[in-house]
């Protein structure tokens, strides 16, 4: 019997053992595995069990489904594969690890109210409040930012070290206008304009990237989080 261990930031929060042919994963309550987080779509993904194989399918989710850190649309799961959706990770086991040790483990890890967990949920709640207040998408200042929140209310928002840009980043080794955030098709993309390698999303240098909720944008020494508004 297959088993899926659901973790939120390294804390096991659920163990799902199922005999179903198909289980759904998403944000709303009608799913078999409910992942409550803004980065998760309502009906995000699906796992089908067929004979001894398990196939995970992304349901054209906004922020994607990842297996072992690789974005997938459809993928056969192997034992111990790590599935990442939003801030959640899930470990797939072909067989139930229902030993006494495992059970004891579960008892120990089912406690959700750790300080870290609370902080994470609190951050998520604050982000939701920010977005609810404004309606649209915002940047929140994470590191070396001169604002707590910046509303993305124009078509193009410039980021860089020049005096005239909308968002002034810290750091010397970047261009006057290092990057721009452009509204497009109901969403936003980030494009590098200045020196190459100085605009990063989640730690990786980009030329152009569609922004997803929770993405960390790094320009020079400053870091901002993209918090997506209601669509």
């Amino acid at each position, binding site marked *: 019997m297959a088993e899926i261990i659901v973790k939120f930031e390294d804390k096991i929060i659920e163990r799902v053992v199922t005999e179903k042919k198909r289980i759904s994963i998403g944000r709303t309550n009608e799913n078999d595995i409910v992942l409550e987080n803004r980065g998760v779509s309502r009906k995000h993904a699906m796992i089908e069990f067929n004979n001894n194989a398990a196939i995970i399918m992304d349901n054209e989710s906004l922020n994607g489904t990842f297996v072992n850190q690789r974005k997938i649309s459809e993928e056969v799961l192997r034992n111990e594969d790590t599935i990442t959706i939003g801030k959640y990770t899930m470990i797939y086991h072909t067989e139930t690890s229902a030993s006494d040790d495992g059970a004891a483990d579960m008892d120990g890890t089912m406690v959700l109210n750790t300080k870290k967990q609370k902080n994470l949920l609190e951050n998520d709640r604050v982000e939701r409040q920010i977005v609810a207040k404004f309606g649209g998408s915002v940047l929140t200042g994470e590191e070396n930012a001169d604002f707590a929140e910046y509303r993305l209310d124009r078509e193009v928002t410039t980021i860089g070290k020049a005096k005239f840009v909308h968002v002034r980043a810290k750091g010397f080794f970047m261009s006057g206008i290092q990057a*721009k955030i452009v509204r497009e098709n109901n969403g936003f993309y980030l494009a590098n304009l200045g*020196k190459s390698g100085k605009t990063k999303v989640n730690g990786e240098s980009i030329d152009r990237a569609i922004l997803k909720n929770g993405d960390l944008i790094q320009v020079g020494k400053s870091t901002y989080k993209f918090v997506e508004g209601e669509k």
Partner: protein
Amino acid sequence: MRIAIISDIHGNLEALQAVLKEIENQKVDRVNCLGDVIGYGCNPVACLDLVNQHCSAKLMGNHEYAAIGLLPLEAMNLAAQQSIQWTIAQLKDRELAMIADFEMKTEDAGSLMVHASPEEPDEWHYVLSQQEAIKGFAHLDQKLAFHGHTHLPLIFCQAPNGNVRTIVGHDFDPDEESSYLINVGSVGQPRDNDPRASFVVYDVGEMSISYHRVEYDFKITQAKMCKADMPSMLIDRLEVGR
């Protein structure tokens, strides 16, 4: 100290080369460029390289702003749109990064330098009337400002009582009481019925302004533009300067 000020080159390599050669004769300490290095003409990359090589201050023009996607193309007239789209296709990451370092305005030797108007530099106001000039002066902390954008070498002079006069660009010595908004004209696409490339030298020690016009072989520029299938209006105007 002498500062040469050039503006609105618009991808016209022949005009820029001629102007830089004349600037050499002028024995200046530095050259400042007030923007619109690209757009209209066929040598945006070569012009960006020359500006980068020769100019101390490099300012943003509306064509640069459009090229890096900060100004919607619909905000420009059709010929400008067509040429800026052609221009964008010529620009690589290297040139975009060069443009991304252009400043919106700068101060040099007690004067302000800006592409369009001291009032909201990134709104690209056209200072063609006394009303627009008065708004510009209202945002000017210095006695002197140099700008471009309209391609017309005009001088707006504000007397201490606030009155503004418009004067056709000519050599003069600013007086201490008045404020001046000095349009240096265009290197690559003059529009004052004089096809010769225009630039200004500001002699800080002598406190004098001189206008310079330079002939260049616009036939070469026109031939390149024909080959690139640029709108004929843009090609024809180089010959007559309007």
